Every structure is written in structure tokens, then in C-alpha cells.
């Protein structure tokens, strides 16, 4: 391939412009969160914070129920992802390794379930949860979030299970393992990247969920962080410093997870699945 200096210049220049475009909103969130209020409400934007303050973070953390909300969000997210991983492991093993009547039907069910329009089913879910006296509880959130990520988890893990050579399992069985033992000892460790990738996407879906918690959990003690973030600004009267600090606190766990697991996650995506 021929590449002149100009052939290099334009792609690189475009890349830099794009990089700035993609990073800027994230940068602006953190930058605002650390800026003194005087620099935030200024007619000339202060591009680089020189005076760093932690006041906005203190304010966000001191907000009522902050730690309860963190605990709720973590509980619901982690439980729902773990539950769906366990259920999906069983299902994906069957779908990837066994031949049986109706296999295609099961696959189709999970594929269609992946498209489920949760955003428009909120009324029906509200009625079901209310009729079972479960409003303002974390249990319905956990099980519905579990279901939101389950089809994706099954279909992705199925790809990972299928990618483990059958011979490994068979030779373990020749060595005297039963099939379940062979699975736990041989396949399970090889699935680690797949489990990480799928749980990352499950984590993001559950951590972000908004419409359901918005209608199911009216009491502050039972809410989660997304709801808190969406109401923060109005509650704090356009305090952008505190709002950006709150958003940063909400975003940091995912940003860290994602940046670290990104490579594995992306190859996991192309392996046979996608996003929530």
C-alpha cells in the first residue's frame, strides 16, 4: 500500500479531532466536578481547573440517603448479574453441547426475549408488582434486571462454551470425571473471559436501569442511583458542580470496569452477542 505524508496526516488529524469529541463530555464532567463554583458559573469557560475543590463531592455524598442508594444499586446489580450467570451457565451448556428435540425453539425464544421492550411494559409490571405487595422493594428490581440480562448472557456464553474443544471434556471423562465434574474442572476455568465479558454488560444494564425503578420504588430508601442522578439537579437547584460530582461518582465504577475489561469484552461481543 502506498502512503504519502499526506496519506498519514489526514487520518491522524481526524483521529485527534474525533478523540477530543468523544472524550470531551467525560472530561467536562470530571473537570466541572472539581472546579470551584465561581469557575463553573462564569461567562468564559474555564477549560482547565486550576483551583481543585472536593466540595462538590462532599455535597453529593452528604445528600440524604446517598449511601443507602449506593448499597441498593450495588445489591440489585450484583445479585441480578450473578443469578443470571448461574441460570445462563446451565442453559448455555445445554444449547452448546447437547442435541435434543426443540433446541432450535429454545434458541428462538431467547433471541426474541433479547428484544423485549421493557421500556413499554412498565405499566403491566407495575400492576403485577403492586398486586403482590412488592412495591418499594429491591426483590422485583433484582429479578426483572436478572431477566433483562439473561437472554444476552445465555446466547453469549453459548458461544464461549462451544469454543471450548469437546476433546478436553471427553478426555477428562476418560480420566474418570463425570460430566458435571468435567464441566467444573475443565470448561469452567476456560470460560473466565466469557463470564467476565457477559457480566460486564449485565452490570452496565442493571446499573443503568431507569424506567422500572422510576415507577416501582417511590420511597427514597428503596431507590437506586440512576433515579437519584436524574433528580439531583432539580433537587439541588441547578448546582452543576454537585450534579457533575454525583454523575462522576455514578460513572466511575463502570468506567473503571470497562476500561480494564474492554479488550475481552469486545471480542466477547463479536463472538455472538451484543448490548442491552
Amino acid at each position, binding site marked *: 500500500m502506498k502512503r504519502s505524508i499526506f496519506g*498519514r496526516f489526514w487520518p*491522524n488529524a481526524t*483521529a*485527534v479531532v474525533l478523540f477530543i469529541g*468523544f*472524550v470531551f*463530555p*467525560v472530561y*467536562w464532567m470530571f473537570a466541572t466536578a472539581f472546579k470551584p463554583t465561581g469557575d463553573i458559573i462564569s461567562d468564559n469557560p474555564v477549560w482547565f481547573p486550576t483551583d481543585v475543590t472536593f466540595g462538590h463531592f462532599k455535597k453529593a455524598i452528604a445528600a440524604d440517603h446517598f449511601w443507602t442508594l449506593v448499597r441498593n444499586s450495588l445489591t440489585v446489580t450484583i445479585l441480578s448479574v450473578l443469578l443470571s450467570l448461574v*441460570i445462563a451457565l*446451565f*442453559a448455555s451448556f*445445554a444449547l*452448546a453441547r*447437547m442435541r435434543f428435540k426443540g*433446541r*432450535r425453539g*429454545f*434458541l428462538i425464544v*431467547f*433471541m426474541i*426475549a*433479547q*428484544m423485549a*421492550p421493557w421500556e*413499554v*411494559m*412498565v*405499566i*403491566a409490571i407495575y*400492576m403485577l408488582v403492586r398486586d403482590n405487595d412488592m412495591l418499594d422493594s429491591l426483590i422485583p428490581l433484582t*429479578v426483572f434486571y*436478572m431477566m433483562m440480562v439473561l437472554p444476552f448472557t445465555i*446466547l453469549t456464553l453459548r458461544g464461549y462454551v*462451544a469454543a471450548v*474443544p469437546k476433546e478436553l471434556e471427553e478426555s477428562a471423562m476418560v480420566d474418570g470425571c463425570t460430566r458435571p465434574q468435567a464441566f467444573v474442572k475443565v470448561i469452567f476455568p476456560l470460560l473466565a473471559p466469557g463470564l467476565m465479558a457477559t457480566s460486564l454488560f449485565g452490570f452496565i444494564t442493571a*446499573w*443503568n436501569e*431507569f*424506567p422500572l425503578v422510576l415507577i416501582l420504588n417511590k420511597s427514597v430508601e428503596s431507590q437506586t442511583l440512576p433515579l437519584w*442522578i*436524574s433528580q439531583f*439537579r432539580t433537587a439541588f437547584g441547578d448546582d*452543576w458542580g454537585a*450534579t*457533575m460530582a454525583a*454523575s*462522576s461518582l455514578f*460513572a466511575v465504577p463502570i*468506567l473503571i*470496569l*470497562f476500561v480494564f475489561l*474492554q479488550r475481552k469484552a*469486545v*471480542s466477547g*461481543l*463479536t*463472538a*455472538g452477542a*451484543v448490548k442491552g
Partner: protein
Amino acid sequence: MSVQTEGTDTAGATGVRKTEAPPPRETGRPVAKRRAGASAPYLLLLPALLATLILLGWPLVKNGMLSFQNLNPRQLILHLTEWNGIDNYKEVLGSPDFWKVVKRTVLFTAANVVLIMVIGTLVGLLLARLGKKMRLLLLFGLVLAWAMPVLAATTVFQWLFAQRFGVVNAVLDSLGWHSMADHNWLGTQMSTFSVVTLLIVWQSIPFVAINLYAATTTIPKELYEAASLDGAGAWKSFSSVTFPFLKPFLLATTFLEVIWVFKAFPQIFAMNEGGPDRLTETLPIYAFIEGFGNQHFGMGSAIAFLTMLVLLFLTAYYLRLVLKQEEDEL
């Protein structure tokens, strides 16, 4: 949502299809063992199936039932069930508002998906052309945008486009566009949609670009060599090698984005609650606001059902394709 992209698997999973090919060798097993094993797949699938039936099937059925009921605050509080046949559907389908929202949702989805796919593909191809350092830099930027939780991103965009002290207005003002100094971005339908579109496109491009780049790395080099031997230029080798190779991937991604943009809820709702004057309500927001905001739960359910039909209609082609592919695979 599954992307069935034949041949575009990256390094981590290249073995997927190969290992599925050989037929099972189970003839040597004792009969008793095989019979006991016959129910194993069903037992393994039982928890997933039960969860799907209860947690997805039940709300779907419940939604269908509610859509035939006259369910307003009175009936809700007194736990009354009043069937009213197809009245809700008659009312929804007869209201010009509903059709306006349908049209708006389809246009909104189309505009976003076209932008996402075109720019995403270009960025993906750019990633393939860049040197290693620049590629890593751009990848880092893309991953950050991708990883931002939707509500954090929405709040940041509200701040970027804030009327007072928002950085976008300040920059436009300093560039000489003084009428924008105090522009209220959430004041009109078009400019609210512009901000929402920018937010959605910004967050969606990384997925398309990074996966497309991953897919291009699996195109065999020989194909390009053969093309250049045939005297193909840059454009010709793109249209005869790159594009056909990426086509299944592009198709699958397009439909995923259709689903994702169509259902976008927090971006619109948290930005401005469908305002100003309900002019940025898309179907999911419309169902939510009619159902919960105005407490017409039966009507809301009917709208929800019709929303699912529209989504199904928009994605029918893709679903058919996926189902056909599954058939070929088994």
C-alpha cells in the same frame, strides 16, 4: 441481542463454528446412561425457561389484558376490573396524536440509525488505517464514551447545552454567533431532538466502530492481494472486498441499533421529559406518560402493545434473517 456474523468473529472465538461441525459420537454409550441423559438438556434449560415465562411472559400477557380494560385511578385504587373491549384501541388509533408520535418515532429512529451507521463505519475504517499509537488513542476515547452510564451521559449533555453557563453556548458566542449566547436548547422540538440525537449518536458510534474494526482485522489479506493483482484501486477494493465481507455484520448492527434507538427512554425522559409541550415524546415515552403521567393505565397498555407491534414491524426483516440463519446452522 445477538449478532450472527458469519466469519467476522475475532481472535477470542474463532473456533466457535468449527467445533460445532462434527456430529456427536454417542453410539458407544450404554443404553441406560443415554436414557438418563435424555432429560438432562431440559433440566438444564428449565430455570431459564421458567424465568422467561414468569418474568417476561407474564408481564406481556398482563399488558395484553390491561389493554382491554377501563383502568383509571378510580379502578386502580378500588382494585376494580372493568373490561371495555377494544375501546382503548379504538381511541388510540383514532387519535391524531398517536399517529404523530408514530411518525416522529420512526423519523427519529431512522435519523439516528443512519448517522450512527455511517459515522460508525467511517470511524471503524479509520481505526483500521491508523498507526498503532493513534489507534490506541482513538480507541481509548471511544471506550470512554461507550462506557459512560446513560444517565451520567444525559446529565453531562444537559450541562454542556445548559442555557446559562453551558460550554456549547459560550463557544458559539465566542465564535461570533452571538445570538446563541443564551440559547435555550430544550425550548423547541427540533433543538431538543438535536441534543438527544447528538447524545445517542455519541454513545452508539463506539459500538459500531470498534466492532467493525475488529471485523476488518479478520478479512484475509489474500483477498486484497488478489484484488490489486486485478488492478483494483482503493475504492474498488473496498467495494469488492471490504464491503461484501462486512455486509452481514453491518446488517445485524443496523437492526440492533434500530431496536436500541427506538426504545431509547432515559435519554429523552431525563433530558426534558418529552417536552417542550410533549413534542419530543417517542412511542415508549408516550405510552409511559399516557399510562402513568395521565393515569390512563388501560390506554397506556394499549399504546404499549401497539408500540411493540411497530417495533416488530421495523425489525421483522432482521428477525426473519436470524431465524433462517439459525435453521441453516443446526
